[in-house]
């Protein structure tokens, strides 16, 4: 017996734990740790889709374009967050869409005057808590029915959906003989409650002349803090600080400030270029200085290229150059004649090109990374490739009907593929030689820089030009600094508690700083903008509710008992029950959370629109589910995130708003949503396989 008892699995030698830790548990770097989060795909997708619409429709880069997106995302997002909790708990609620309208109508009917007009004539102070009770009862009904009957929640809530739909129509007609139910203004206490659920912030009424200065400081400071956080998380600290590095850091910061001042004070092309050079150069000096100051230099950096990495890098640069050339040659002014020539060819070209690019990307992904121990990198590239391929297929599909289509597609495809090739080449080289990886990364940084200048000179859109230019400049700087420090400093192989803590905190402060900068830019206007006659963009209080709901849900899911129970009942209900989790109660509470969210959304809609149609909300339940799935929630339950669901809602809102903003026929919206859903489900499935089986 003792023989079998001491033998462990062959792949797991029973060595001393401390020594075994390093060998069996490779320390996961910053990016690898981020990758296993369920919401990461959604964040990448949101950034890609936003950048896409920004490039296509100018106003997506302005407050007038973003604030409507936030408004649309709010009501959708509140529901998506609640629905994602329910889905993580392993259930569906198909009545959630109809419930929003129903609960809004209930509130309005409660406050309407008694008399021939119908209604109960209550004050809002009474009506709002009463409709909350109705909401709780509705959720309790759904949950109890599902738990008692043991039927799939799909069927039970489908029934509730039709019941609610009938009630909405029936009661509206019965009580007030109208399918339009209004108005909530009649209620007592409206003046107070409209502030809570319906107030707005009109951007043009709030000027802040130093807005751009605050914005710039907040953004650059945020980026600097983020870079510092990454350094802190990725590298080994020195025993003693190096003062020379500190001097370089300070000099770099000073240089960036000077560069910004130069850029701010001029409109000339040559001074702008000079400023860009100063910012980029000093940024790299500062970042390298930061590394020298605090972190341990690596010993023995090698420099040898293997042929595969070189080929990839060469092809990558070639593709970027071709992409730039394609956009350059087919100039906006003269495009019509060129497009006439290729007009017949464009569909086959796009389809063939897309298929070829997609296939080769996947092939490369499979070949290059098959059997690679670093599976996370593999995941990065597949997710990235899938996102890029999807974006371009959609782009092609939607955009070919406009004049600039071919130019943009060629440019995007070639440049995108080029950068992917460069990144793969760097990864390839990094496995054999640290120096070679740095060299390829430097080339990548130079290509980004070239792209920045190209866009600044070629793009006709001033807004897009200046902002993209700045972003690409910072990106080139970060990649360049990364190349110079990445392999010349000792990377962390083990957790370092105080560094991890500092890095995480600094990173959070950096992100908050950037968000505050963005918010200030969105919420305030300047004299110059008013003079330019910008639209009167509004910020609605709904978005604050959305943030509040998303924050609470994220906290509950991640840090509370109830959160653990949600994952448990969705992941393995029987196990949860056996261990003592009240599974039935947890699920019922989840249904009640969804109906309370529907109550909140119903109120927000009622206060925004004043009157509600009896059909309000019908059919939206699938949008909530799509948003949750896009945000990384599994349809099968047990895995997901509330934060991801709110990002999913943003993606949905962006596509709703972006398609008309790009002046496409908005009928295409559903095709767009379908493609996004499919891509999200495939990505989720992939992550799930990894999470369940990766060792």
């Amino acid at each position, binding site marked *: *017996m003792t*023989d*079998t*008892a*001491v*033998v*462990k*699995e*062959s792949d797991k030698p*029973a060595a001393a*734990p401390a020594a*075994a*830790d390093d060998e*069996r*548990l490779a320390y996961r770097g910053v990016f690898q740790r981020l990758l296993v989060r369920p919401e990461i795909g959604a964040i990448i997708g949101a950034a890609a889709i936003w950048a896409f619409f920004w490039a296509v429709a100018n106003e997506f880069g302005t407050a007038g374009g973003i604030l409507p997106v936030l408004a649309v995302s709010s009501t959708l997002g509140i529901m998506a967050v609640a629905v994602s909790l329910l889905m993580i708990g392993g259930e569906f609620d198909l009545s959630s869409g109809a419930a929003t309208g129903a609960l809004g109508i209930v509130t309005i009917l409660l406050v309407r005057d008694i008399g021939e007009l119908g209604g109960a004539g209550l004050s809002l102070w009474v009506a709002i808590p009463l409709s909350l009770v109705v909401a709780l009862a509705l959720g309790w009904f759904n949950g109890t029915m599902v738990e008692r009957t043991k039927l799939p929640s799909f069927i039970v809530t489908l029934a509730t959906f039709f019941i609610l739909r009938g009630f909405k129509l029936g009661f509206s007609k019965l009580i007030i003989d109208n399918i339009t139910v209004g108005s909530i203004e009649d209620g007592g206490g409206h003046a107070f409650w409209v502030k809570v659920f319906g107030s707005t912030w009109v951007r043009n009424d709030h000027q802040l002349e130093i807005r751009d200065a605050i914005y710039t400081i907040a953004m650059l400071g945020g980026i600097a803090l983020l870079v510092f956080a990454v350094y802190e998380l990725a590298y080994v600290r020195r025993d003693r600080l190096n003062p020379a590095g500190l001097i370089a850091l300070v000099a770099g910061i000073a240089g960036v400030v000077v560069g910004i001042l130069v850029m701010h004070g001029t409109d000339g092309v040559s001074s702008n270029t000079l400023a860009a050079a100063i910012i980029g150069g000093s940024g790299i000096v500062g970042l390298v200085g930061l590394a020298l100051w605090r972190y341990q230099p690596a010993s023995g950096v090698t420099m040898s290229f293997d042929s595969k990495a070189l080929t990839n890098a060469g092809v990558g640069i070639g593709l970027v150059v071709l992409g730039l050339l394609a956009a350059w040659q087919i100039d906006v002014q003269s495009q019509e004649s060129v497009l006439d020539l290729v007009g017949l060819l464009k569909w086959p070209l796009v389809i063939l090109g897309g298929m070829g690019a997609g296939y080769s990307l996947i092939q490369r992904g499979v070949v290059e990374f098959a059997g690679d121990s670093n599976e996370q990198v593999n995941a990065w590239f597949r997710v990235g490739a899938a996102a890029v391929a999807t974006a371009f297929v959609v782009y092609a599909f939607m955009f070919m009907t406009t004049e600039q289509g071919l130019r943009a597609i060629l440019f995007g495809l070639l440049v995108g593929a080029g950068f992917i090739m460069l990144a793969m080449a760097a990864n390839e080289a990094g496995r054999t030689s640290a120096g070679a990886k740095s060299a390829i990364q430097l080339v990548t940084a130079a290509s980004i820089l070239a792209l920045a200048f190209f866009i600044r000179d070629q793009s006709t859109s001033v807004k897009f030009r200046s902002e993209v230019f700045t972003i690409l400049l910072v990106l080139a700087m970060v990649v360049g600094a990364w190349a110079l420090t990445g392999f010349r400093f000792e990377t962390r192989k083990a957790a370092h508690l105080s560094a991890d803590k500092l890095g995480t905190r600094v990173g959070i402060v950096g992100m908050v700083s950037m968000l505050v900068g963005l918010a200030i830019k969105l919420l305030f206007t300047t004299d110059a903008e008013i003079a330019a006659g910008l639209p009167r963009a509004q910020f609605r209080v709904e978005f604050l509710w959305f943030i509040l709901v998303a924050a609470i849900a994220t*906290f509950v899911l991640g*840090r*509370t*008992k109830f*959160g*653990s*129970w949600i*994952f*448990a009942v969705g*992941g*393995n209900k*029987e*196990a*949860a*029950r*056996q*261990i*003592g*989790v009240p599974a039935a109660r947890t699920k019922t509470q989840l249904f009640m959370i969804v109906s309370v969210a529907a109550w909140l959304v119903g109120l927000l809609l009622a206060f925004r629109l004043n009157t509600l149609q009896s059909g309000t909300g019908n059919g939206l339940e699938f949008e909530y589910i799509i948003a949750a799935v896009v945000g990384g929630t599994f349809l099968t339950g*047990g*895995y997901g995130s509330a934060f991801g669901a709110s990002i999913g809602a943003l993606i949905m809102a962006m596509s709703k708003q972006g398609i008309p903003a790009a002046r496409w026929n908005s009928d295409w919206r559903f095709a767009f949503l379908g493609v996004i859903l499919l891509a999200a489900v495939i990505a989720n499935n992939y992550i*799930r396989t990894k*999470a*369940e*089986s*990766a*060792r």
Partner: protein
Amino acid sequence: MSALIELENIGKFYGNIVALQGVTTEVHAGEVTCVLGDNGAGKSTFIKILAGVHQHSEGTLKLEGEEVSFGSPREALDRGIAAVYQDLAMVPLMSVWRNFFLGAEPTKGVWPVRWVDTGKAKSVAKAELAKMGIDIRDTEQPVGTLSGGERQSVAIARAVHFGAKVLILDEPTSALGVKQSGVVLKYILAARDRGLGVIFITHNPHHAYPVGDRFMILNRGKSMGNFPKDEISRDELVQMMAGGAELDQLTHELESAGGGG
């Protein structure tokens, strides 16, 4: 030494179906009581009565001398009886530490703002697993990434940590390979050495005999006897478990069918 659990003539009926009848055995602290039986012998019913999933229909169940009947799994757990089920033990997509503390998470803060003390939970989970001799790489990793034996072991460690006096293991080795089974058997002994009364349910006498101190054999819902280890040999155990004479008959048939092979 007085028994932790004493069962006397325990029986369970589902309507007119007799699932279990006349079962008598006892469980002592620091001892492994093995319950053996073929499929359909009533092992599941036996566990479910002890774990509070079902209530017994007749006989007496005494916990530390006091007569009890558990209304729910939670109740049994609160009294110190923890069951570890073969497939249902863990939520695969959840991390090791969340699984470890599931249903009994340590919290900080004051109601209504109360949250799980993740730092404490992780370090306690890691330390408790180490005490059982289980070296988990990272308590953040999903349980789904552990091997079958490791999962059982985490479940055992969890039960031990939460003050279980009696540990019921339902077929912990049946789905495992030889080496993995060995690992689990070792953890059974580790739990025994920490003073728990272990009830080890299995249909494999070769797994039961080396670790067991007491054997109870079930057949078709009836107890075929309750033996301390020194009163029964491994061969006798195998014989009894398969129904004695029936096995002789079967062996005979097989041999003649297989040409004596």
